[in-house]
């Protein structure tokens, strides 16, 4: 009960500056990365015209992501498809990792969603500048008239906060509810169902929403 908000940290000095590492989050992220690498190796090990089950699953996933990206961005190129599919499977496995006893979701630590949100922010604005040119890009901030420019800048920054806090709040809230309810009923019967709801259902939806919103931001910025 009392270790809900405890985060394992490890501090060390590097060239005079003190660095702090959230060890548990880092280890969980590495586990997710290892699982993704293993899945990718299994899925693409022996590519054939008549695919084996693993290759078939990989093909279903990649083509679904390809279709989603093309429909949302309204293009025929595959520029953002690798990013989108990687982001989705990383968040999906991260949100599901909490169901394994002894491990925790990396997304329960604000650092993970916030870094992914900042990545999306820079990606969106790089794509917008590349697509429209710097002059047109800066001109859009002065819509509908010049005085609104600070508000538009704040609005862009608020997108990062809202997208990362949404994921963080959902996952941490789910973890706290599971922990509190399990403590109250002495872990009888109910916790597995809670894990199914908050881990599988909410985790999947939030991973999808984070991915979808990142694509939508890119789509809005480049149009």
């Amino acid at each position: 009960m009392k270790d809900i908000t405890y985060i394992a940290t490890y501090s060390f000095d590097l060239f005079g500056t003190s660095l702090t590492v959230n060890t548990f989050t880092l280890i969980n992220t590495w586990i997710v990365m290892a699982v993704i690498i293993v899945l990718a190796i299994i899925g693409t090990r022996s590519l054939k015209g008549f695919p084996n089950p693993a290759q078939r699953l990989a093909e279903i996933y990649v083509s679904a992501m390809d279709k989603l990206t093309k429909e949302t961005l309204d293009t025929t190129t595959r520029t953002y498809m690798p990013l989108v599919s990687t982001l989705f499977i990383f968040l999906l496995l991260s949100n599901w990792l909490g169901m394994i006893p002894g491990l925790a979701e990396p997304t329960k630590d604000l650092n993970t969603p916030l870094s992914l949100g900042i990545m999306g922010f820079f990606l969106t604005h790089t794509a917008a500048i590349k697509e429209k040119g710097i002059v047109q890009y800066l001109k859009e901030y002065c819509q509908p008239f010049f005085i609104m420019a600070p508000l538009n800048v704040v609005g862009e920054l608020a997108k990062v906060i809202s997208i990362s806090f949404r994921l963080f709040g959902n996952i941490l809230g789910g973890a706290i509810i599971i922990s509190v309810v399990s403590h109250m009923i002495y872990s009888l019967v109910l916790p597995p169902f809670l894990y199914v709801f908050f881990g599988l259902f909410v985790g999947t939806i939030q991973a999808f929403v984070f991915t979808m919103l990142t694509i939508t931001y890119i789509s809005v910025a480049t149009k």
Partner: protein
Amino acid sequence: MDGITGAEIIRAAALLGAGMSMGFGAIGPGIGEGFAAGKACEAIGRNPEEAGLLTRTMLVGQAVSESTGIYALVVALLLIFVVKG
């Protein structure tokens, strides 16, 4: 026996504020998400072959309207776990 100290008042106010934040903050997203789900049901009833697109759009819209509720949750968590009297 001492009276109530300032730290205890701060702690009590933080816990009260957390409950109020979550309670009031849950009203808006509850109404909004229910409204969106109801409208999506109507749309699917009228146009069943677009169910996949409608569900996807509904989920994204609901997640966006949920963010105020999530802010309330984050504020409540901050008040409970970070504010020490």
